[in-house]
């Protein structure tokens, strides 16, 4: 039974809270809901950076849009005492990610930086991960996508274009993280400095609601955000241990 014991030992290690502390980096995003205006700049920035296709009206109507970050909106109260709250929703890069354990081919896994990563050419498209994800942030390619020429000239050469039958999702702009790490290495430095790498959504946010960094660095902005009294995780009760921290909106959301 040593195989089972080994497996259980690994499993326990994998599920141990805080196991990510031994990672090189633990990339984290904080989103201040008191700053977020719901302007959608992050959505288009992500589409531009990550070669997300335009699916067209018909596919969109079937719920097959490809937007790795989206703005969710929740109304509270009734007219005239009505309020609208916005919340940007993207892959939470959970440290206990339900999507990872369910993939039959390990196409989605946790990398050494604490990112929930997707290996496109390993994915066989069972879509189980999308079913298990409580945040509904995994997107499946139902089609091969087409860019009307010359729109394809805009495609980012640092990011692969995904094919039909493959699941995809937010990567925290892993190509930018890689570049920053390479730069740090080339400069003879050991680590990436706080603020040196920003995913496209964080970079563009006009209200500076989104902040990105390494929570293993106690001095980083996201570390401070994580310890902020307004910090919380969405659907915390599921114990997914997300890497996205939200800061509560101030004031009652209901009128």
């Amino acid at each position: 039974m040593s195989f089972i014991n080994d497996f259980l030992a690994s499993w326990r290690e994998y599920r141990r809270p805080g196991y990510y502390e031994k990672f090189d980096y633990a990339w984290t995003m904080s989103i201040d809901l008191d700053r977020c205006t719901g302007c959608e700049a992050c959505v288009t920035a992500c589409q531009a950076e990550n070669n997300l296709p335009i699916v067209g009206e018909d596919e969109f109507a079937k719920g097959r849009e490809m937007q790795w970050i989206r703005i969710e909106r929740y109304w509270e109260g009734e007219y005239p005492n009505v309020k609208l709250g916005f919340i940007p929703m993207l892959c939470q890069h959970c440290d206990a990610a339900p999507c990872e354990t369910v993939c039959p081919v390990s196409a989605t896994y946790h990398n050494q930086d604490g990112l929930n990563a997707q290996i496109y050419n390993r994915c066989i498209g069972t879509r189980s991960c999308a079913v298990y994800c409580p945040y509904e942030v995994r997107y499946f390619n139902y089609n091969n996508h087409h860019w009307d020429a010359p729109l394809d000239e805009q495609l980012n050469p640092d990011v692969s274009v995904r094919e039909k039958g493959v699941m995809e999702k937010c990567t925290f702009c892993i190509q930018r993280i890689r570049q920053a790490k390479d730069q740090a290495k080339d400069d003879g430095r050991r680590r990436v400095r706080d603020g040196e790498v920003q995913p496209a959504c964080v970079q563009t946010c006009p209200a500076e609601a989104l902040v990105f960094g390494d929570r293993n660095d106690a001095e980083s902005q996201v570390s401070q955000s994580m310890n902020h009294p307004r910090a919380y995780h969405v659907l915390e009760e599921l114990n997914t241990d997300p890497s996205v921290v939200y800061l509560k909106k101030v004031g009652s959301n209901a009128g």
Partner: protein
Amino acid sequence: MSSIDRRDFLKLVGAGGVGTGAGFMLRESIKHPTQHLIPYVIPPEEFSPGIATWYNTVCSMCSAGCGISVRTREGRAKKIEGNPAHPVSQGRLCVRGQAGLHTLYNPDRLTGPLLRAGEGKPGELIPITWDEGISQLAERLNVLRDDGQGNRICFLSKGVRGHLAELFELFVDQLGSSRLLHYDFAHPQTLYAAIDRLFGETHLPYYDLKNTRFLLSFGADYLGSWISPVHHGLGFGHSRQGRDGIRGRFVQIEPRMSLSGAAADEWIAANPGTEGILALGIGNYIVSQGGYQGSDREEWAASLAAYSVESVATQTGVPAATIARLAETFADTQPSLAIGGGAAGNYSNGVDTLVAVNALNYLVGNLGREGGLVFNPEPVVGRGANASQATYSTMLDLAQDARQGEIEILILNQTNPVFTLPEAAEFREALAEIPLIVSLSSFMDETTSMADLILPSHTYLESWGDDFPEPGVGFSVGAISQPVVSPLYDTRATGDIILGLARELGLTDALPWSDMEEYLQESWQGIYARGSTEAEGFEAFWTDVLKAGVWGETTRRVAPASVNASVIESVGVEAPVFSGSSDNYPFIFHPYLSNTLNDGRDANLPWMQEVPDPLTSVVYGSWVELNPTTASEMGLTEGDVVEVESPHGKVAAPVYVYPAIMPNVIAMPIGQGHDEYGRYANGRGVNPIQILSPQMESETGGLAWASTRVRLTPTGQRIDLVKTGGVSRDLGREIIQTTESDTDGGETASLHSIPITVIPT
């Protein structure tokens, strides 16, 4: 391949890091037979692909004038980001700015000059060469010019600033014409008029949201579509959570909740058109309760006497207690700020309303101080953005002149009045009377489709230019717009087309420059001569400005101390006049600028079609917003197609039940409803501008686009709205959590802000 050698290619693609400007590189490349970057199937020896080059330039997707940095790889633009050094955008960008690449790489761009063949308008457009196009147009212009009939030429552009605007003025003046017009649907002309009347300023002030503690916004969707959304977004974020122990509070007064209304702490629906009356009620309370102690207190008290809190409460529908509370908070929370715009500035009483709103800033001493209203210095170049702007009545005059045969040549530059003027203006019909219409647009659109000659311009990412944001940020800012990629097609920069025409017409005495770049270099000598630079020599200065993507002077003006007594006397707001009787047309129509499509000009960008509307999450179409009570009374649910009918036309669109709109108001987004604007825009939704009444704002003659009444007729048809939003309520999941504590835990995240430092004079 081509005769370009490896060294030149390296120059073309740049060597990584921040580029010194594609312009320099393009100039190098012009010496060679090819003017185009050629895709390298086999990369040249020693060339390592994969190094990005960034160019700083200026965004032209709206009139805010944000500085941007464009990331290019192998000669192609890949991504646009805000330029961190530019005080307007500070490294940030909005959704429309991000989509600039879809303008550049749009498959529906015009690829070269076209001439309408044969007689009559339905003739086919056939490709011609630039030489043919320029010489044919020059010939026609020359006949009128020689005849002293230059005034039969009209130049109608979108709003442009900086040296391109100067060039237009020079050119049109040389033609002997006085008809140089800029036309934008959303130009805030009523705000210009209000600021002029109140403070004697011909330029808009800078509203310092960043440092304010209490903002009263009367209809201005400052985070979505009003003046400078990126800069306002920065200010909003900082005001909210960027200061230790201080959290700015935001109040939005408007009949339908906008993006800014949703972000605000409090959303107040006042009766449409009474926003100015509400402002005066607040003013009355402040003055009568002793909140204002200036020497002209008596004058203010007299002119505000008619606006007691009780009577204002009746007129506006806002409870007296709320008015008193707003007034007290506004006076006591310093610095506070009042802004007005959007629909509030576009009723029949628009200017009076905005005078009333801005007078509040005067009453509580917000003028010229941090967190208040700061006056901008004189424009560095030209007469500013308002000088040539056409109002609705100017456009009617133009149409009238066209019908009477007084316009022989109309040159259009990137403006689409057929789409952005109501049907009642009959502008399309008037255009049909003009013998020669020339369009410099980069895209086919509803107005360009009527042109006889099309000389397509480069997009802003391929052109030289400059921009001086107006309103600025309290001090002078400018930036040079430089090409970031080689032109994709056989198009030319607008400035170069003008200079080409001038050469052909023999106007080289007045317009001696060979191209836009040379013209800019010469013109920027004047800015260099202002001495606000440490660069040694003009060449160094020019390179510095290109590299940094911004130039500025941090000197600030001293605000005028008082408001003229006759102005105080004139303060007052009439009840708004709506077109159509309330019996036949029971609803007030509230069109609003789309967050993504602007006034319709961005409807041809696929990203903008597919990004959900922030408030409704609808994509790809038009919709009619109804209050839930109104909808249930009429038996309407989401997706029921209704006809929206004004005295001047009707459009049909599906209902969206919108929880935050007044029961007697219906709203529609502007932007869709194109039929000649390329594959992504055509045949989607409807254009609400079409059915607007030709009601004018009483002082400026601008279109009072918020003062139309409509009725609704269900058609019995249904359309499923395409949208992302599913369940629109939280249902106890606590996805968005809130806290009561205002400033718990101190400030968050301002590492990436660059402070705007202002040196007081």
